[in-house]
């Protein structure tokens, strides 16, 4: 008689291998373990709860279908995160095609107002409580165009190199560098403006 598996005590690799053999309960444990992180990445990119739920769910279904393709060259979570990022990028590209050329898009081509922005000298993130800092970062991210936000997320949070970001966003390395530069500058200005608001 086969012994009942203690899924919560198994590590990701063991769960993953069991899931590759078709063990749905092992896969469910992986979903339960990482579902918040996958959803959080989808939400940070989409800024929309409904899309984030749908895309994270789709990512889990896709991963089940591709379990046999995963060779363990990265952690399971990293692999899953890449799947959800790609789904989000596809969706964002679709959204962009559907809407008319925005002013944001035009600004990006010419460098927008970021080119003329004065350099922010005192550190706007200094002496902030972590929760407050996180809330301000999130508020500022919300004000960026999707291109600027995505490049920041992929570089600062996912720690991807320029080349990898360019591949995923289907643009040149030069575009990635330019977007990242303006995104960082805009973030600095926004963070400083929140600080000034607080001091008033």
């Amino acid at each position, binding site marked *: 008689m086969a012994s009942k598996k203690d899924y919560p005590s198994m590590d990701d690799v063991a769960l993953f291998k069991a899931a590759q053999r078709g063990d749905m309960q092992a896969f469910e444990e992986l979903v339960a373990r990482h579902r918040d992180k996958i959803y959080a990445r989808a939400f940070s990119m989409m800024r929309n709860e409904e899309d984030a739920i749908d895309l994270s769910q789709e990512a889990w279904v896709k991963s089940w279908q591709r379990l046999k393709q995963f060779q363990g060259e990265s952690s399971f979570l990293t692999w899953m995160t890449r799947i959800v990022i790609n789904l989000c990028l596809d969706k964002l590209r679709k959204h962009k095609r559907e809407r008319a050329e925005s002013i944001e898009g035009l600004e990006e081509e010419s460098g927008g107002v970021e080119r003329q922005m004065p350099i922010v000298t005192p*550190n706007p993130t200094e002496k902030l409580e972590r929760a407050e800092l996180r809330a301000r970062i999130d508020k500022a991210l919300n004000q960026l165009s999707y291109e600027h936000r995505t490049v920041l997320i992929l570089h600062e949070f996912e720690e991807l190199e320029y080349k990898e970001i360019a591949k995923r966003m289907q643009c040149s390395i030069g575009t990635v560098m330019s977007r990242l530069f303006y995104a960082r500058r805009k973030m600095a200005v926004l963070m400083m403006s929140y600080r000034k608001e607080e001091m008033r």
Partner: protein
Amino acid sequence: MKHEMDLKLQAYLDGELSPGESAEVAALMEKDATARALYTELQQTSVGLKGNEVEWRLPESREFFWSKIEREIQKLEATPASPAAPWWLAFVRRHLAAASGFGVATALLVVAAFQMNMVSFLPSHDLFEEIENPIGDSTSFSFRSESQKMTVVWISDSTPSDDESDSADDSIQ
């Protein structure tokens, strides 16, 4: 040039430059206060962001979220894989797809030509001219020419004239 240097400063921060380029940027920062200030701003923003992302939580219970995933997986696995298409169908798809597109386009052009009355490229206008005799034994005939925008109707009396009757009678007689 200025923007290119700005991007190099950033690439230096991100460790994306070759050793030679890194030395060039380091030298620039030593003598240029604005470059130093910009580098500091980019660095502070980067450091401030790292590890400070809001940790969003999925607003659905474990059971409910899993039930949706499980349903999708079961649906996919219940769908039988479509059988491989025969070789000749693959050939038709590959080689005749373009031809069928051309055929459809040609048919649309012909229909459009009909609609717009642009028929001059066709060999003969006679195709669009018709003679009709609605009732077989009637003695009225109509002729219509689309190109001339004209309809001609011949009406003839089918009953023999008195003279004709007479002559017929004569012949009988």
